[in-house]
């Protein structure tokens, strides 16, 4: 397959730009709200393209360290969730809390960066 241009990020930027600068100011009420939500959703995908690969590797490394063995990220997350539910990890364990906070902050850098700025 040849390299496809323009790249996804360029398409998204163009779509966001149109919606935000041209369409949104022309709308009111219900459709204005829905348009704003649509812009937010596209911006999330835009940030995910940029940030998610690095986050995934870092989270997998932290999970492997916390659980004491390597594995795929989804499986390690499942194992940690199961261990927490079973009471096998103390809820005030600093390593656990640090990992959870780190993972949530990374997700928020994609989903809603303002949440961690405010």
């Amino acid at each position, binding site marked *: 397959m040849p390299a496809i241009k323009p790249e996804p990020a360029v398409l998204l930027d163009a779509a966001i730009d149109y919606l935000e600068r041209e369409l949104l100011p022309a709308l009111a*009420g*219900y459709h204005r709200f829905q348009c704003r939500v649509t812009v937010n959703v596209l911006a999330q995908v835009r940030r995910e393209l940029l940030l998610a690969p690095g986050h995934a590797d870092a989270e997998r490394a932290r999970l492997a360290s916390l659980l004491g063995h390597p594995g795929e990220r989804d499986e390690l997350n499942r194992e940690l*969730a199961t261990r927490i539910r079973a009471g096998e990890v103390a809820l005030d364990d600093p390593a656990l809390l640090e990992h*959870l906070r780190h993972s949530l902050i990374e997700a*928020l850098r994609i989903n*809603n960066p303002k949440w961690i700025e405010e």
Partner: protein
Amino acid sequence: MTERDAFQNKLEAVVARHLGAPGEVRELVRLTGGATKVTWSFDAVVGTTTLPLILQQTPPERLVAPDGATTGIHGAHEAALLEAARRAGVPAPCVRIVLSPDDDLGEGTVTERVAGETLGRKINTGAEFAAVRPTLAAQCGSILAAVHRIDATGLDFLVEQTARDQLATYRALADAYDHPLPALECGLRWVAENLPRAPRTCVVHGDFRNGNLIVGEDGVRCVLDWELAHRGDPMLDLGWLCVKTWRFGGPLPAGGFGHRDDLFLAYERASGGPVDPAHVRFWEAFGCVKWALMCMHKGLGYLRGARGNVEAVAIGRRIEEPLLDFLDLITGKAA
């Protein structure tokens, strides 16, 4: 005829039947907000007067509450609850019409329209509310004391939900999705290990927060959205008001507009009972966990075959917000 024309015709027939001729509907506007209910604002001509009204409809396919577990309070039940609330001194909407099956508009009510602002961000930042903002937390405290005095006689449809019952509901909701989140498990376990011991039980609003209040330059004018009302621990309502999600960018914990102390003190004065801040904080923390699961339930509805409209799927991407707030609360980092 467009869908909108057909809707307006139905609504005019409803007004004429319930309130009187001619029933002409003017200025019909669909309002934003309300992911479950559809809200319309309109003026109705009845006799020689024009009435400012609100229609809240729950289309039959949406008769499921955000927590997915109960059907919520609608129609005639909602009208009875609002009447009882007004008798207790709560500024609740005044119901003019309860939709009947003949009306063909789903379940819902028509209430008198109260002027004011409902958008949390505007209430927290608008210059016109600058003077009243510092008084809102105390007003909420007094209003909640009145909510908790509502006489439950005749309101048998209000089910009892203890913290333990709610935990079971939300645990089941988490288990319905194959989406294991360690932070969510942490939250559910913390709630299970910190359940309040033998709280008193009364009528609670269930969704008392900034965004569900009509605020004017004189303060809180009306308390909206009673569909999650039930009998339970009154501290739930105080904690839910403080959940960070409902602060809409405001710097202060109670609704973004006020201090916890003002809320608690006004509640104590009006109710005659003490407020234990740790007990309220339990409900604030549980509120974060509940909101995370509501986000999951709404946002992942497409997995159950629901239509993935943009507002719904976007809520799915908000799961991490309350989970981080929860961690901040239980580790003492929260404001």
